[in-house]
């Protein structure tokens, strides 16, 4: 392979063309990375801007927007609500999603194709569809709109994530493991907790973290199902109607920091797992 490329380079009469090519690749990729990160950079920088208006150039550095966040009761309440909703929704999606993935992997039952289609539908369908169809359901059976309604909505929209991730892992798991466990006299429950769950744990962890993040950030479903209580994205959304403030940049910066910690942790957790498996 390497020899081949060396030969190809020798055949090429004009080395400068190669240089031009690698330069243009570098420039293009840098431009894409700039496009991806410039806005995030701007968001973070302007959270430290001394002035209320978001204009160039920045007028000075300050931490006052962060101090204001700490005193903003509505914001803190919405943050608390979001953590509550995302945690409950994540637990629910795992409780429903893992058995669903096992059912799709192991069992045959009438209506399986419909079950598969339905449970995976929210991947393709816009969130607004889940939002309004559940709004209509809750109104028809007289359930009031609340954070709990939002939790059910989020869980319904996000089960598909857990199902696809866990199902993919189960497919790669040799079925002989579960068969051996059954042959040795273990019950289904024992096999699940002693054999299946440990083997799919990193997929479950990954799906859980992803679900939490998506629920934490969710707007379309929340928009239709929440009562008086706001989640954090809904709070930000409602303050955006009143105008732009650096306070939003400050929340944004904190969220980015938090996401960064979450990504790094999950990458490290998964990596350690892989390493320990190899040794």
């Amino acid at each position, binding site marked *: *392979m390497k020899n081949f490329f060396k030969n190809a380079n020798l055949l090429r009469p004009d080395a400068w063309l190669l240089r031009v090519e*690698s330069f243009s*690749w570098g420039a*293009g*990729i840098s431009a*894409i*990375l700039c*496009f*991806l*990160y410039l*806005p*995030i950079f*701007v*968001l973070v920088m*302007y959270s430290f801007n001394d002035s209320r208006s*978001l*204009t*160039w*150039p920045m007028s000075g550095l300050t931490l006052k927007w962060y101090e204001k966040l700490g005193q903003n009761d509505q914001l803190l309440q919405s943050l608390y609500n979001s953590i509550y909703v995302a945690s409950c929704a994540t637990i629910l999606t795992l409780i*429903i999603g893992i*058995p*669903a993935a*096992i*059912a799709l992997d192991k*069992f045959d*039952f009438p209506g399986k194709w419909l*079950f598969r289609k*339905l*449970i995976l539908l929210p991947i*393709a*369908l*816009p969130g*607004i*569809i889940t939002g*309004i*169809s*559940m*709004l*209509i*359901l809750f109104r*028809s059976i007289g359930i009031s709109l609340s954070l709990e309604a939002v939790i059910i909505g989020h*869980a*319904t929209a996000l*089960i598909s994530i857990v199902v696809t991730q866990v199902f993919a892992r189960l497919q790669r798991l040799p079925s002989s493991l579960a068969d051996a466990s059954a042959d040795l006299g273990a019950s*289904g*429950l024992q096999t699940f907790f002693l054999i299946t769950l440990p083997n799919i744990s990193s997929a479950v962890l990954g799906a859980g973290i992803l679900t939490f993040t998506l629920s934490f*950030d969710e*707007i*379309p479903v929340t928009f239709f199902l929440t009562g008086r209580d706001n989640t954090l*994205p809904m709070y*930000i*959304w409602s303050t*955006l109607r009143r105008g*732009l403030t650096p306070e*939003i940049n400050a929340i*944004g910066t904190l*969220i980015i920091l938090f*996401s*960064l910690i979450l*990504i790094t942790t999950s990458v490290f957790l998964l990596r350690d797992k892989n390493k320990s498996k190899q040794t």
Partner: protein
Amino acid sequence: MSGALSARFWRAAVLSPPLIWTFIFMFVPYAILFVYSFWEQAYPTFQPAFQFGNYNQILNDPQYFNVLARTLKIALFVSLGATLIAFPYAYFLVFKVKSQKYRQILYMAVVAPLWVSYLLRAYTWKTILGTTGILNSFLLSIGILSEPSSVFLYNQTAMILTLTYVFIPFMVMPIYSVLEKIPKSLKEASYDLGFGRTKTFFSVTLPLSVPGIVAGFTMTFCLTFGDFIAPFLVGGPDGLMIANVIASQFGAALNWPLGAALALVMIVIVLTIVTIADFFERFGKGKFA
């Protein structure tokens, strides 16, 4: 408990939670949505009926047709834009970056923004593009503009830019994974047969990456098609999309039956696109596997 009985019990225990959940919270709501789409508005609310008035209105009132056409157009542009950016990026990672470590870092770099709140990423574009925004004040300060311009924000271009920005990761991921699976020997064989690099690209690499492009395209298209946040943040009066119209039927307009009918139209369009994409992906796989 005998073995067979225990197995049956276990099966029921595994099956019932997801089956009950999907029935109550997915099947029933979609069914009610379908029923609602035949109801009629009776000011100030609505009442049960069986009539096709809502669908008629959607078909015959140009307002709805225009919004649908605009939404499809924007979704198409966003998906094309994201492909044009994501493909070279993924290609570079797979074929040009030699070090496994840098490849992983560059891959994470493009996927990581997915973890940053979508709302915040769209919001930043609003602060950049606005009349009193960062781009305007920057161009004023270096003398390119003499007065703030309003051309950057509140139009379809701003929406396409913002949505492309937001959905690029969804495009890079599937394209990267198909490019990564192309055996290096195929490209070498093509070179050995005397095909140039351009010909190798168009007759080997590109056809093999079709399933990834289709998957990313479908994802981006559907996400854009159902979006109602970007129109609110950076779209102008001509930037309303179908999801905004549906949302307003369930809000201020209080015409749930019409909203339900519009939602069903949306479901049909999305499912059609997914089915077509599925066909293409399978076709691609069947031909080259």
